[in-house]
């Protein structure tokens, strides 16, 4: 699936690895194609329109479910954004219809009556160990959300962050996204990583199983300006 400029996330990972001399190879796994849990350091699931999402959901269950569980078990990074986030949970209910998910995250998503949750958003996240942050581990992720589904956390789920501005998972709880080890789901696109280069670096370091401080510093003047622009748009 690729909507809402998922390509931006991939470009940022590719360039920030290349500028540091870290080898980066991108492969895609389309409908019906197998997925190998040990072949990759990071697995990315983007967003899709309802129709595409349904096609992808069937395929995820049929051909990729066990590989994703295998990848998560060996602590590879799995990142789902928007539709990808919803499909990493247990299920997505549209009225009487229920699309099953991969079940890597303890969440259920429901399409309810009421408006889509749309707008600029900023959340505060605490990534704990492995964070490249030098100014404390609580950091801001800024982006744009646009989802009809409301995502509810199960007893085993821990939110990715606290909503500072915007709607978040369900528009009420004040939480956004979910994290289970190195598996992360979030509604933030816009896209996510260009607006939050520090988080891209956290993903790269975590994928490589190194400390963030071991990554070579880059000239991030434009990255920081873009981050501030997105925060400002969210009203922060």
């Amino acid at each position, binding site marked *: 699936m*690729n*909507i*809402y*400029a998922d*390509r*931006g996330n991939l*470009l*940022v990972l590719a*360039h920030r690895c290349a500028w540091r001399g870290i080898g980066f190879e991108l492969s895609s796994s389309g*409908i019906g194609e197998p997925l190998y849990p040990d072949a990759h350091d990071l697995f990315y699931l983007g967003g899709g*329109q*309802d*129709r*595409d999402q349904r*096609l992808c959901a069937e395929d995820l269950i049929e051909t990729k479910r066990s590989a994703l569980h295998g990848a998560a078990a060996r602590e590879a990074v799995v990142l789902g954004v928007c539709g990808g986030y919803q499909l990493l949970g247990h299920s997505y209910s549209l009225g009487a219809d229920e699309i099953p998910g991969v079940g890597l995250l303890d969440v259920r998503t429901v399409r309810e009556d009421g408006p*889509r949750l*749309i*707008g*600029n958003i900023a959340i505060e996240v605490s990534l704990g160990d492995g964070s490249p942050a030098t100014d404390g581990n609580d950091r801001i992720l800024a982006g*744009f959300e*646009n989802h009809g589904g409301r995502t509810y956390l199960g007893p085993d789920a821990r939110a990715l962050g606290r909503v500072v501005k915007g709607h978040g998972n369900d528009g009420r709880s004040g939480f956004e996204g979910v994290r289970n080890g190195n598996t992360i789901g979030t509604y933030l*696109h*816009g*896209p996510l990583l*260009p*607006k939050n280069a520090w988080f891209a670096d956290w993903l790269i370091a975590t994928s490589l199983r190194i400390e963030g401080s071991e990554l070579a510093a880059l*000239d991030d*003047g*434009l*990255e920081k*300006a*873009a981050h*501030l*622009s*997105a925060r400002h*748009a969210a009203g922060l």
Partner: protein
Amino acid sequence: MAGLLAPKLALARAVGAVSRLRGGGASSAPGKVLMRLDPSAIGKLGGRLQRGSVLVSATNGKTTTTTMLAEILERAGLSLVHNQTGANMAGGIASSLLAATDSRGRISGELGLFEVDELWLDSLAAQLRPRAVLLGNLFRDQLDRYGELETIVDRWAAAVRTGPARDSMLVLNADDPVIADLGRERDAPVLYFGIEDDSLALEGMAHAADAKHCRRCGAPYVFEAVYLGHLGHYHCPSCGQARPVPTVIATHVTLQGVQTASFTLQTPAGEAEVALSLPGLYNVYNALAAAALATALEVGLPEIVAGLQGTKAAFGRAETVTLDLELTRGAAGGQKSNQRDLQIMLVKNPAGANEVLRTLALEPGEHDLLGVLNDKIADGRDVSWIWDADFELLAGRVRRATCSGTRAPELALRLKYAGIDPAHIRVQEDLESALREAAGDRSDPHAPLYALPTYTAMLAMRELLVARGEARSAWS
């Protein structure tokens, strides 16, 4: 009914005059007032048009296609009521009808020619009962406002199959699978247009391609040729749905940089060479769409060709203005009579931006760019679409990029990840300063400055240029 309508017309007109005096180009204000006074005013006034109305909608190209149609239809001797400022929702169309109606309620026009916002097609068709509807393309655009592409497709399908446009002649782009599918399962006639030129085929689909799966059965389409986004020659290997054979066709397409394009136009009435004063394949599609609707209205081929060739760039769409560098430098300006051309190319979604970038890449040498990214409601609050546009086409081709607008830093970052050296990228959020700095980089009218603004940025830029006397007002 006219007796009841007349005072409402007068009141709405007065409100329009006041809002203009206040300095706004508020082209939809009087219409909005009229709609509040009489919600069925569009139907009542439109019903007085002797030859009825035609509607034009698409994600990209509505304004240019309608401008071309106006040129053609006027040459064919038709007098038009036309929403030429691009105000394309109910208020704008009501304003156009109001402006054409005199104090006795008589309308000065035979045919209504209206470009229509995608989400307003069904309700405006219900009021106007159009004799023909032209649907050009659907690309993803402003997901925060329009929702998913499927939502629009479903509404359009309902409108043209069982809804208010079920009896209208349909003019459809055969090369857009989503649009072409709308022509099936209906009784009223359909006329298809399309491009047939193997030399234009791209390798693979663009990142922003939107219609990969068959509307009928969900299987992925097989494309024999992709011309632009998801437009091309295709078929579904599963259910057999295929591109309809068009009756109005462009062959032998030649694209000449940012200035012109030409092609051979084939219609049932014959064949002719068309030389456009507009650039890019997207404008060939616009011209073909206009030619097809004109053909459906039984306009002769000579008028069609003359109209297409006589069309100048619409408002902010490949329009060129000459900047006076004295003005851009302010009172402290240096040399005299320094001038520089500024070409404005609206970009508002990935598919449209890709065609502009592709056209720009046809020009040799290094370019100076002024990109203006706004995130107001009319632009779409979500600016992620810039990551789906192929700015990579300009890598190594940018001498200086100035980024402006409410989300300027994010555009600058996009250019950096597209492979443009950050040392060549400047961020200046204020538009007037950005224009001054970008234009002042080089005083050579033969090295044009290319402006790529989003919709509200384009309006702001034109307003600035009009105030300085460098561009003509669209409202005059």
